[in-house]
């Protein structure tokens, strides 16, 4: 699999390590009311879709950036990749 790195172009997926669902970016507030339940959900529960999946890949043997890769789990086709930093900042701007 080749991952279209936004800064470096097509890179072999072997340069990356895989973390999982991109929803892991949205870490709950540990001080909030009901944080325990929110963390149990955050740490353990997954959508695990068959089809398009947004997921976190770490360019460990490259520029050490985190990417959000959109990939089809039924075909392994990679649709696109963005810097996880951009995704996170956009999320913050949207006030999520």
């Amino acid at each position, binding site marked *: *699999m080749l991952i279209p790195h936004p800064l470096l172009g097509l890179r072999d*997926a*072997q340069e990356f*390590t*895989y973390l*999982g*669902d991109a929803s892991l970016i949205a870490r709950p507030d540990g001080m909030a009311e009901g944080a325990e*339940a929110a963390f*149990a959900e955050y*740490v*353990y*529960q*997954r*959508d*695990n*879709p*068959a089809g398009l*999946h947004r*997921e976190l890949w770490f360019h460990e043997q490259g520029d050490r950036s985190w990417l959000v890769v959109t*990939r089809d*789990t*039924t*075909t*392994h086709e990679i649709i696109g990749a963005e810097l996880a930093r951009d995704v996170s900042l956009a999320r913050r701007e949207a006030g999520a």
Partner: protein
Amino acid sequence: MRFSGFRVLAEALTGHTGWRPLWRNPDPQPAYDYIIVGGGGHGLAAAYYLAKTFGKARIAVLEKGWLGSGNIGRNTTIIRSNYLLPGNQPFYEFSMKLWENLEQEFNFNAMVSQRGILNLIHSDGQRDAFRRRGNAILLSGADAELLNADQVRDMAPFLNFDNARFPIKGGLLQRRAGTARHDGVAWGYARGADLAGVDLIQNCEVTGFRIEGGAVRGVETSRGYIAAGKVGVAVAGSSSRVMQMAGMRLPIESHVLQAFVSEGLKPTIPGVITFGAGHFYVSQSDKGGLVFGGDLDGYNSYAQRGNLPTIEDVAEGGMALMPMIGRARLLRAWGGIMDMSMDGSPIIDKTPIDGLFLNAGWCYGGFKATPASGYAFAHLLATGTPHDTARGYRLDRFATGHVIDEKGVGATPNLH
């Protein structure tokens, strides 16, 4: 139709005209007391024990494709009970005891062969860990032996004992472990269930659950609505997809695991040999092919096929462990979809929806568990309480902190 040596002889003398299909192919009834979703190993075993051991009637197994078309037909056929943790080991030992009597139980040749499993040791630290594991296995009533390097050399002289990175210092041997004919297991359970009156309904995909007032009433299928008292889901690999139809999210990711078989060779490998340091394991089928595998590809997948880097990695592991494998030609490689749970252990439990039960999360260890999983699931469906050996496999253990993490790597499904 009972199978026996006499029967084979009689058929041989009469031109094999007396053999009949192993099970009926019935149309679904409008309602059942019990519906098992998934006609794989675990689902068929559950239906079998539900009918035979717990004496329940009006049972159906609904299968989207053909019986045994999922991971029961795609695995590397190893059976063993060499786990460490108290939540796991008694369950797998219960499974081993069922394996030992399985063929007599369901009168079908599942080719259960207790040829032993050898886990190799490469360092002092690993020996300490395996000694501890071996003691835990002995305490559970199962068997384990710690071997030194010479004893391993006697068993498997072809291994590379002097690998610079992972020299072989010994091994943990479980003699009662071994292999079984994976398809035969599914067919045996299917036939036994059918004889006990279970309707095995193929080409019948479940497309939804009918849930009213927090309780399941039946399932929508590609062959119409079927009402049910209790519904048990055993669809490992697709558990998240199916349970999503009941509005549930699971502590599971689906991953692809590849397996490989070489051309047929003369008897070479005495039993199952595992190389944990490099993650490679190998056995030899009765046809002579070397059956081997290694790590997951590592990313979520429903594709039932993996990619070349993992094949290369497994081949490297094989060459490091037993260089002679390089002379064998690879015949086939294939991939299966694993329910990778968040602690590496399975789930056999009721769900928050009344009457809906879940059997899932088998990671890549589901085959050896087939008899006990079926038995424990049938026990849960029939009695409403978990089987003694499966009490730890709760769905809510992640929220309550009672995880059963054999490998100790936390909520990282692709590392279990």
